[in-house]
């Protein structure tokens, strides 16, 4: 890099890192970006239109490809060979990692819901968790900029759970499909409103990206750029400025400091040669994912930073949160044998159910403090490795059972806010190192009553709506059995949280470390709370806002 005088070094090319690279290079700053995984090009590597029948095991999930053969995630998943993580006794946790350029943005669900003032100020309202160090109004213009840049389809619903986007920002949402329309009517009878989902999928062309053509699951990646991922948008845009260099297969080990404790650069493993390399930098942005960035900080222990870098508060690795998750599905007899049509749509929710219980919670009518939403499933999807239903017999009558059930199952996936608690955190395993010699993350996890009561409420509500649709649901599982494992929803955040005081947070509102002014965090680690709305839009919005602030500091010579 002798020929490239970069000012900022970014670790990670996913939602946060790529957005930071985009904003900084756009403003004329030279950026060097390190990615732990391999280079990845969606234009040539995405399996568009490939049928399940052409994949091994009809495309079924395997330990090699946890979300199915065609999932875009490469060299990753719940386990990365040679790069383990551990769990404390009595704790269960799953940690999804993607070792590839673009990180998890290549396969994410693209659900893009804004947090609201209500979400940012939970502690002020009910005394639980932590407030964010800014107001909704501070970030609203940045949500607009981010949504306009990445392309989000949806509508301004006017509901209290969904703050409006600026005029003309949202692209039109796709038309709802029959199962969603039936769920919407049944929910309405219970006073619950279904509305268009907000998704980072183009329904109109944007820049060099094409509009969705309503085929091929977004989780496979999107070679035409309709479904947002950094590898077809922010990264090529940043590279086009001439101000970005990327090194892939670069696994960062530590952030380095001088004898006074000032951050000077990073140390990384070049995976291709398995050698350790050093890079100096004026400013470092960690965006390696919440737990990977916290791992780097905790592993960057020196005499000047004895508890790990940027950890004078002791909060690095603490406050680990995921979304709550639970699901309920049933066969809806009224949907059996219904007329066929192409129900692929943009291959995910056209309608969903946002949290409707703000007033009930304010009136203390509910026994859990934070909300959730339902993502709705059920459509004529491509046949795959499993056929549902209680099938009996053989021959033409058997085939007719399969045809009748096709498209007649609907599902509710609960995604809810969890509160941070003292039992949910990550630290460094004192014994185990990965194959690069880097000490690994160890997870500690325990749901609290807040989450279990919320899941119980969600299951009961979903059952009521399903029964209104004429489905037989049967007995509900206990919440502690129904709730997904920690980490399983892949919304882990909070391990380097931002706040208004260096005593109980790791960064200020700009993602700038309290302890080290030239060290920033721009991934989900900075979340002060984890609202039920999927985290990626807010990771990107914060990264844009905070990189713009960083650019001002650089221009003013303050860093």
């Amino acid at each position, binding site marked *: 890099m002798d020929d490239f005088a970069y000012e900022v070094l970014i670790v990670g090319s996913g939602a946060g890192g790529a957005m930071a690279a985009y904003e900084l290079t756009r403003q004329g700053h030279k950026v060097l970006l390190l990615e732990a995984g391999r280079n990845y090009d969606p234009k040539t590597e995405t399996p568009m239109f490939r049928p399940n029948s052409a994949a091994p095991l009809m495309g079924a999930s395997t330990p090699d490809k946890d979300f199915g053969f065609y999932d875009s995630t490469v060299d990753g998943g719940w386990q990365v060979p040679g790069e383990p993580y551990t769990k404390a006794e009595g704790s269960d946790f799953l940690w999804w990692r993607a070792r590839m350029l673009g990180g998890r943005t290549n396969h994410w669900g693209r659900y893009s819901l804004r947090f609201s003032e209500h979400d940012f100020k939970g502690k002020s309202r009910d005394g639980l968790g932590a407030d964010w160090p800014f107001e909704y109004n501070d970030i609203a213009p940045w949500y607009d900029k981010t949504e306009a840049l990445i392309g989000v389809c949806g509508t301004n619903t006017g509901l209290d759970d969904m703050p409006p986007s600026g005029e003309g920002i949202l692209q039109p949402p796709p038309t709802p499909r029959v199962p969603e329309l039936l769920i919407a*009517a049944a929910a309405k009878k219970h006073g619950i409103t279904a509305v268009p989902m907000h998704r980072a999928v183009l329904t109109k062309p944007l820049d060099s990206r094409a509009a969705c053509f309503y085929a091929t699951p977004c989780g496979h990646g999107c070679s035409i750029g309709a479904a947002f991922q950094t590898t077809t948008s922010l990264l090529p845009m940043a590279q086009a400025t001439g101000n970005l260099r990327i090194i892939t297969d670069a696994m960062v080990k530590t952030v380095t400091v001088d004898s006074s404790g000032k951050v000077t650069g990073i140390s990384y493993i070049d995976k291709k040669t398995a050698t350790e390399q050093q890079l100096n930098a004026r400013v470092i942005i960690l965006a390696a994912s919440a737990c990977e960035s916290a791992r780097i900080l905790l592993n960057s222990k020196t005499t000047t930073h004895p508890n790990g870098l940027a950890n004078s508060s002791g909060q690095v690795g603490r406050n680990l949160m995921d979304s709550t998750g639970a699901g309920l599905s049933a066969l809806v007899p009224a949907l059996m044998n219904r007329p066929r049509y192409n129900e692929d749509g943009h291959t995910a929710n056209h309608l969903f159910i946002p949290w409707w219980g703000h007033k009930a919670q304010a009136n203390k009518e509910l026994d859990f403090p934070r909300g959730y939403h339902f993502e709705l499933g059920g459509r004529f999807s491509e046949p795959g490795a499993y056929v549902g239903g209680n099938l009996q017999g053989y021959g033409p009558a058997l085939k007719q059972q399969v045809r009748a059930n096709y498209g007649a199952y609907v599902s509710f996936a609960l995604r809810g806010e969890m509160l941070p608690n003292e039992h949910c955190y990550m630290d460094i395993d004192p014994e185990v190192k990965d194959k690069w010699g880097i000490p690994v993350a160890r997870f500690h996890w325990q749901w609290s009553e807040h989450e279990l009561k919320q899941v119980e409420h969600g299951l009961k509500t979903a059952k009521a709506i399903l029964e209104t649709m004429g489905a037989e649901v049967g007995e509900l599982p206990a919440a502690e059995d129904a709730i997904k494992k920690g980490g399983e929803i892949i919304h882990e955040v909070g391990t380097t949280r931002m706040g208004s005081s260096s005593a109980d947070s790791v960064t200020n509102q700009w993602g700038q470390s309290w302890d080290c002014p030239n060290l920033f965090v721009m991934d989900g680690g900075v979340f002060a709370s984890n609202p039920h709305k999927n985290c990626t839009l807010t990771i990107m919005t914060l990264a844009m806002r905070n990189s713009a602030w960083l650019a001002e500091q650089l221009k003013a010579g303050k860093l």
Partner: protein
Amino acid sequence: MKKPGFMHTTAGDDLQRDPSPAYTNRLSRRDSLKLLAALAASTMLPALSGCEPVPTTTQTGNATGTEHWPELKLPAINAKGYGKDPNLIMPPEAPWPLTLTPAQLTTLALLSDILVPQEGDSPSASQVQVPSVVDEWVSAPYPSQQRDRLTILSALAWIDDEAQLRFNGQFSALTAKQQLAIVDDIAYDNENTPLQFQRIAKAFARLRNLVLAAYFCTPQGIKDIGYLGNVPIAGVYPGPTAEAYAHLDNTLAQLGLTEFAYQVA
């Protein structure tokens, strides 16, 4: 040989392919030579295949009406999986060695066609190479497929044991009527299932599910079930057809939900 969907740029092309009339004569999806060898071997050349030997089974009963179960001791599958970074554009044709014996494949083909026979334009399961897909599944080195391997190979062994006990012959050597007599006893898993068929009925159900999945995700099966997606749409997603909306309106009315209907813009 290429898999369906790979020689052509659209799925529609695959629907135009001529179905082969006799399953001993067709081109298989992945490994037709294996299956052809298996079928030939099943009648005259028992030593042709390089597969593992037919598992030894033991019987705990000796007459119809008595529960029996083959206690298979299956060698572990030690093949490698396709790894964390397989080629998604050109998926591996033969990701791991296939392991079913000629006799198992023959029984599987017969059962597959009983489960999914030819119906009008829709081919039978073996005509679209379902046995090959099942072979790939039960030969895979992953935990869930290894569990299915024991279940499905046990079911195949049980069926041959039952054929011997009841009709003194291998299942594949029985008349169609005799074969159906056995299938009739094991194809229903409900409160009326006799005790001696309860375990096999559950195992058979797993095989049935796998055969159905393999069938319905072929181009022909997709046509049969009526999946109309995976085609690019220019412009706005059209949403439900008039017929689909009419069905929905009728459904809402029957459920008393008309007044709560979502207003589509």
